[in-house]
């Protein structure tokens, strides 16, 4: 099990070997910053003159919900596009460069390889989350008030969503030897999951409920509203483990195909 960390370390540091990781990190930092600023400014604007925005008073507007709820929802859209860029290298690049062959001959289990690769990306994703804590500090410094509960549950939800998306990306990456195909494939799958969230708005039959239950965004939304439901955590745990298992199965197929 120790070797999961060895591989994760290598994966994590190789995020910085290319400009891709640095670029994704910087872009994520800038974009989330812009989102946050816009949300804070628009809240400030509304709070000055609520009547102009059709609100009788500011009492009905929850500061935390207005700023952080929307902020995490916007971020969830960002990771939809960034995760495919992060995961496209994990297996596809190694299969293209044929460096996996050696890895498979070291005294490692396939699980250690898949889990290590995934963990390295999770670390990188967590690194991306760090600046978000800075925004909290800035908000506090500006004189904003927020409830810790919804903010923390928002972070937790965002972290779980990121892990789940990364698992999809790692699986798709293990299917191909082309990083571009991997990125586009992951993006398509994530977009399809994104669309699941809409089905409920156009229909309310039993199928709509199935799609809604499968939608990561629906489960994520509860977190942004400060609702901590075990169901949602279990959903993400299953989502994550399911794609991890698929990735494991996919790299084991080398034993019978070629």
């Amino acid at each position, binding site marked *: 099990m120790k*070797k999961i960390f060895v591989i994760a370390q290598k994966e994590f540091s190789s995020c910085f070997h290319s400009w891709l990781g640095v670029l994704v990190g910087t872009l994520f930092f800038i974009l989330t910053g812009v989102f946050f600023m816009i949300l804070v400014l628009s809240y400030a604007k509304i709070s000055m003159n609520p009547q102009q925005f059709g609100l009788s008073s500011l009492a009905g507007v929850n500061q935390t919900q207005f700023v952080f709820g929307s902020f995490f929802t916007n971020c969830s859209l960002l990771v939809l596009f960034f995760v495919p860029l992060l995961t496209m290298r994990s297996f596809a690049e190694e299969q293209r*460069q044929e460096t996996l062959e050696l*890895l*498979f001959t070291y*005294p490692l289990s396939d699980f250690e390889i898949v889990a290590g690769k995934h963990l390295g990306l999770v670390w990188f994703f967590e690194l991306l989350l760090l600046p978000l804590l800075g925004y909290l500090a800035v908000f506090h410094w500006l004189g904003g008030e927020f409830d810790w509960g919804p903010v923390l549950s928002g972070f937790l939800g965002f972290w779980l969503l990121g892990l789940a998306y990364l698992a999809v990306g790692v699986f798709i990456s293990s299917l191909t030897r082309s990083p571009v195909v991997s990125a586009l494939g992951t993006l398509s799958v994530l977009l399809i999951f994104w669309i699941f969230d809409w089905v409920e708005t156009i229909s309310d039959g039993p199928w709509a409920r199935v799609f809604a239950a499968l939608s990561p965004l629906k489960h994520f939304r509860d977190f942004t509203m400060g609702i901590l439901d075990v169901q949602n955590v279990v959903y993400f745990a299953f989502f994550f483990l399911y794609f991890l298992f698929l990735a494991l199965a996919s790299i084991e197929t*080398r034993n019978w195909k070629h």
Partner: protein
Amino acid sequence: MKKKTVSSSVVRFEHVSKKYGSVRALDDVSFEINAGEIVGFLGPNGAGKTTTMRILAGFFAPSRGKVWIRGIDLFRHPQKAKRSLGYLPEAVRLYPDMRVAEFLRYVARLKDVPRKSRNIHVQGKMALCGLTDVGHRLIGRLSKGYRQRVGIAQALLGDPDVLILDEPTSGLDPKQIAEIRALIRTLGKERAVILSTHILPEVSMVCSRVVMINQGKIFASGTVKELESCLKDRQEISVRVKGRVYRQGAIDLLKGLPGIEALRMREEPGEELWFIFEIAREEDPRAQITQLFVQQNIPLVEIQRVKLTLEDIFLHLLQEGRFARRPS
């Protein structure tokens, strides 16, 4: 099923077959390799060499059959068995964005080299493979020869008992080839080394034993000497004579010698004639021929005894698929 009856063999292939779809890449292959042996796998392209190497290295499982590494079933206890393996793939690919020393330290950790001795261990292997000066360089920027050395160094990490080298000298320049061959000979003293190649002289230079493989089947195996002696109990002698006028005289003389077979003649430019014949291996009629030709005043300019090379043996075996006397 415990098999504790394993002899001293470090590697044992038991009736291994591998299919890629409907293509049979390996068909019921069995062999054993002992410590201190350098075994060469010889075969034309597509014979199943790389498949054998990959199965042996634990890259993928065979469709049927078992592989034992030091008495451990490679596909039942892969992690345990793989600790005794060092593998250099054909045209080794390494992470281009890692530095040499960084990569080797990474592999050392994956191969369970204890933390305390890790740095010394890695440095030792780098020195052995002549990599000390390039430790800080990116693998992607190294020349092919150096990358091959990094490949060999990673195979040596953890001091495995079994080294699997798939075409270790392909794509290198002659000086590098000589260096790597010397390195392999050194390494083979206490380990079992399996190398695959399609360069025939390499086998006779480096290997103590040869396994010949074609179309997924082993069709010959033994030391180079054994193969030579099995193939042929005869040798070929060529005599070159200057001047066409001596043709008949030379033929008469040679025909008079005892034990001569398959005499033939070839004309060469510049009035020279080649007479080629076969004779039993133990005989050496060269001195006698020289003497006779001088007595008859036939200008003898060259006399050669041709030993059959591994190449001849190989081509013959390929054609006939079995040991046989050379057809005359």
